[in-house]
């Protein structure tokens, strides 16, 4: 339910050529055109459809207000209260919960770990996704089937993927060990998860990368397909090499798509939980912010610290997403 920072303005750009915002005006009758709502624009003659619109959006507004906005406000408030069902009463503690989580070395480690998860998640997902997008850019026989195969990991539950990969990583009979040993890359079977921190994080992150790369590939593919063919034709007339075409035409023009793919990968990897829960459980080695929040809250029942950690993580996620959009996203003119 998270992780969609850039969708709004980015989609506006992408859909513009097909006329969502630009041409819709022409399709509307003259009387309606004037009061049409434009993103960021003003509504000139409100209320002309009477009560009907309010009835139509009422269920939506109730759901969002009660189960998205109200809980978020509660998180912000409760982060400053002591709230623990085992040691009542609840009381205001200022920044006490934050002091509590920062003095907890497990929490500090999970912050660092989450940084690694984000780094691996973004770099691997965006580069693999871009590669797959470029590979599928031109139509060829069987592309439809390959596209379906590429999408598959995205459609599967993260937990199930964690379970499937934990069997692949198995220290005593896993296929990864078997393959690496046959290739003489390792002398004997290894314990991959839980020994070295960065290795553990990389391998758990890889499971998530496997899941979300299709998303990046589809976003990049959509960006690629919006590039006019003439640009490529011009380049091939000029005798440009494939590498040069990719570097100086393709990549700059899919910059907005890359920005969305990056934000998506970042937000999803900052929220990594399912894969960590299965592969790492509550160990500190590969703990993520989300898994630490879960265990502090629902295992230690320290709700106050759970709220504080949630608030911090929310702020980090939203800020990181906004920052990436600001840095990477720019409109492209063909």
């Amino acid at each position: 339910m998270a992780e969609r920072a850039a969708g709004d303005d980015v989609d506006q750009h992408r859909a513009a050529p097909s006329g969502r915002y630009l041409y819709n005006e022409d399709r509307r009758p003259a009387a309606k055109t004037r009061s049409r709502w434009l993103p960021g624009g003003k509504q000139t003659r409100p209320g002309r459809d009477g009560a009907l619109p309010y009835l139509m959006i009422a269920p939506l507004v109730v759901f969002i207000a009660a189960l998205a906005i109200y809980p978020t406000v509660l998180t912000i408030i409760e982060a400053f209260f002591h709230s623990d069902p085992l040691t009542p009463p609840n009381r205001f503690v200022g920044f006490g919960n934050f002091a509590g989580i920062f003095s907890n070395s497990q929490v500090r480690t999970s912050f660092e770990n989450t940084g690694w998860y984000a780094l691996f998640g973004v770099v691997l997902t965006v580069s693999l996704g871009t590669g797959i997008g470029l590979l599928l850019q031109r139509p060829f026989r069987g592309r439809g089937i390959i596209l379906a195969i590429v999408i598959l990991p995205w459609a599967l539950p993260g937990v199930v993927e964690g379970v499937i990969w934990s069997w692949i990583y198995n220290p005593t009979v896993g296929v990864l060990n078997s393959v690496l040993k046959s290739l003489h890359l390792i002398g004997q079977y290894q314990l991959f998860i839980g020994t070295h921190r960065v290795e553990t994080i990389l391998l758990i992150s890889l499971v998530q990368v496997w899941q979300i790369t299709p998303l990046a590939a589809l976003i990049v593919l959509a960006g690629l397909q919006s590039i006019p063919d003439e640009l490529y034709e011009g380049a091939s007339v000029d005798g440009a090499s494939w590498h040069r075409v990719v570097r100086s035409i393709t990549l700059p023009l899919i910059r907005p798509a890359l920005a969305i793919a990056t934000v998506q990968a970042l937000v999803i990897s900052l929220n990594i939980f399912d894969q960590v829960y299965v592969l790492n459980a509550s160990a500190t080695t590969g703990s993520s912010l989300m898994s630490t929040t879960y265990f502090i809250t629902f295992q230690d029942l320290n709700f106050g610290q759970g709220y504080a950690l949630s608030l911090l993580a929310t702020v980090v996620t939203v800020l990181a997403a906004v920052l990436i959009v600001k840095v990477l996203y720019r409109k492209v003119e063909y």
Partner: protein
Amino acid sequence: MKRRLRGSGRVVALALVVLWSLFPVYWALKTSLSTNAAAQQAPAQLIVTHPIWASYQALFGAGPESADAAGGIARALVNIVVETTGATLLTLAIAVVGAYAFARLRFRLKGAIFYVVIATLTLPVYATLIPLYRIMSDLHLVNTYLGIILVYTSGFLPLALWIMYNVFMALPASIEEAARIDGATTLQAFRRVVVPTARPGIVATAIVTFLFGWGQFIFPLVLSSSSSTEPLTVLLAAIDSRNVPYTIINAAAIVAVAIPAVIVFFLNRWIVTGITAGSLK
């Protein structure tokens, strides 16, 4: 010459992409059809020579290795279907009606309300998880279908609204005008003309929403982890942490994978539409 080389490099790259995407699932399937001994051979056997169904029989309580180890998978399967389908239908009903109002009708504060609803897309799980647990336990909705469906719906609504809003904005307004000229009210035009025309967009939204629901884990882990309501994902994590044979764990994973895999292979063009319209997960 150069061109040919490029062509074969491309084929190798495509083969690697296919291998990367399919191998983990293949491996689970292969393990689930093996005997315990065959599954644990070293070096690993890449294919299964004599496939057996014993793991699936054990899972569903019919085999010799009967399944207090695994038990409850039939119920968990029912739970995940009920919860996912319920949330998908509720989300669609609310989002389609709401998106139409935002796309076509005029009312006060429209822009502001729309932006606030869409902005909740950026809220990470952290922001709402603990309060939703408190709210649901105050309402006695923990471990009920209704509770989990309400929570899922609140989470899926912004994306479904966004996709459906784009779908309606892309439809020419002339179709409703024709209906209005023929004397239909706004609601009649919506029901009889707009919804049927927007059907492809609605199907895409439904499929993407269903897959989200099927993949949920942390919310049901917190909100419905009793056996009467736990979805398959939560049960699978529990089986995985118990001392159950690998063959049975992998069979359970394949059961959880089957429905999304079928959807991907038969309905993938809707998924592409849904993802690129929303460009989100």
